[in-house]
């Protein structure tokens, strides 16, 4: 994080100069007064300026935006980043042209980008921040698709009495399937296999 030390006649002046220099506002920085000013004797002897240290506060969301913008620059993309906050995490919803490549097959590019972003922002900070990246509501649409799939396959299991193994999915997607079917008393779901090939299995409950 950037920081500077600046001296001026008063503490206030020094802070003001530092903020101008860093182009930040007061709530974006940490201020430390290193030396109080001293008027000296009759303004002649021991006249001392105030010295302050102003340091930029680590803001994971801001760092995340800078990180993504840099990657988008290399990809020649210019999405608009809309920031939404929920209780558990922050969501960056991207919109713009040619964002299909950011989603990839079944969202694997989006998940990779999100994984790297979270590694990066949490590298320098003790508090864990989780940022979800979404492209024009892709994640909700994908969840709907998964819930539909889960319902359809559970019907098949009930009809045939045989278990169905789904294709490999990440933990988040498997969770959506488990939750979608948890209230259905005639079937059970569980996961099997090792990451990243772990799959959901739907079995009839007949005992």
């Amino acid at each position, binding site marked *: 994080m950037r920081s500077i030390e600046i001296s001026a006649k008063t503490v206030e002046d020094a802070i003001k100069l530092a903020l101008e220099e860093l182009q930040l506002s007061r709530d974006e920085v940490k201020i430390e007064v290193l030396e109080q000013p001293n008027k000296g004797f009759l303004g002649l002897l021991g006249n001392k300026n105030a010295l302050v240290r102003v340091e930029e506060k680590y803001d994971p969301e801001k760092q995340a935006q800078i*990180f993504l913008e*840099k*990657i988008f620059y*290399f*990809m*020649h993309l210019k999405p608009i980043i809309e920031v939404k906050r929920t209780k558990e995490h922050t969501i960056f919803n991207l919109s713009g042209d*040619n964002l299909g*490549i*950011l989603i*990839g097959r079944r969202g*694997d*590019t989006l*998940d*990779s*980008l999100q*994984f*790297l972003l979270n*590694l*990066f922002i949490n*590298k320098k900070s003790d508090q864990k921040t989780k940022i979800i990246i979404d492209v024009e509501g892709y994640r909700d649409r994908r969840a709907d698709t998964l819930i539909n799939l889960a319902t359809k396959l559970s019907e098949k299991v009930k009809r045939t009495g045989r278990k169905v193994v789904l294709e490999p999915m990440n933990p988040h997607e498997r969770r959506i399937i488990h939750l979608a079917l948890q209230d259905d008393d005639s079937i059970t779901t569980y996961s099997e296999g090792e*990451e*990243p090939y772990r799959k959901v299995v739907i079995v009839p409950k007949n005992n």
Partner: protein
Amino acid sequence: MRELVEFLAKSLVDNPDQVKVNEVEGERSVVLELTVAPEDMGKVIGKQGRIAKAIRTVVKAAAARQGKKVVVEILQ
């Protein structure tokens, strides 16, 4: 693509000044050879290669937009 790999690697390691990416141009594909400080190897590979895989996926997506095939190799 070289700059993208370099940026991603530098964002993840503890010694960004020791990140180097060498570009080897083939007929149809480009090989990007990534070197990092020995103690940073885990930071670009990850458990079961999860980080390396994520880097490759993002770079592949970026390269596809330019109609190129890019291979990212991490050198020991």
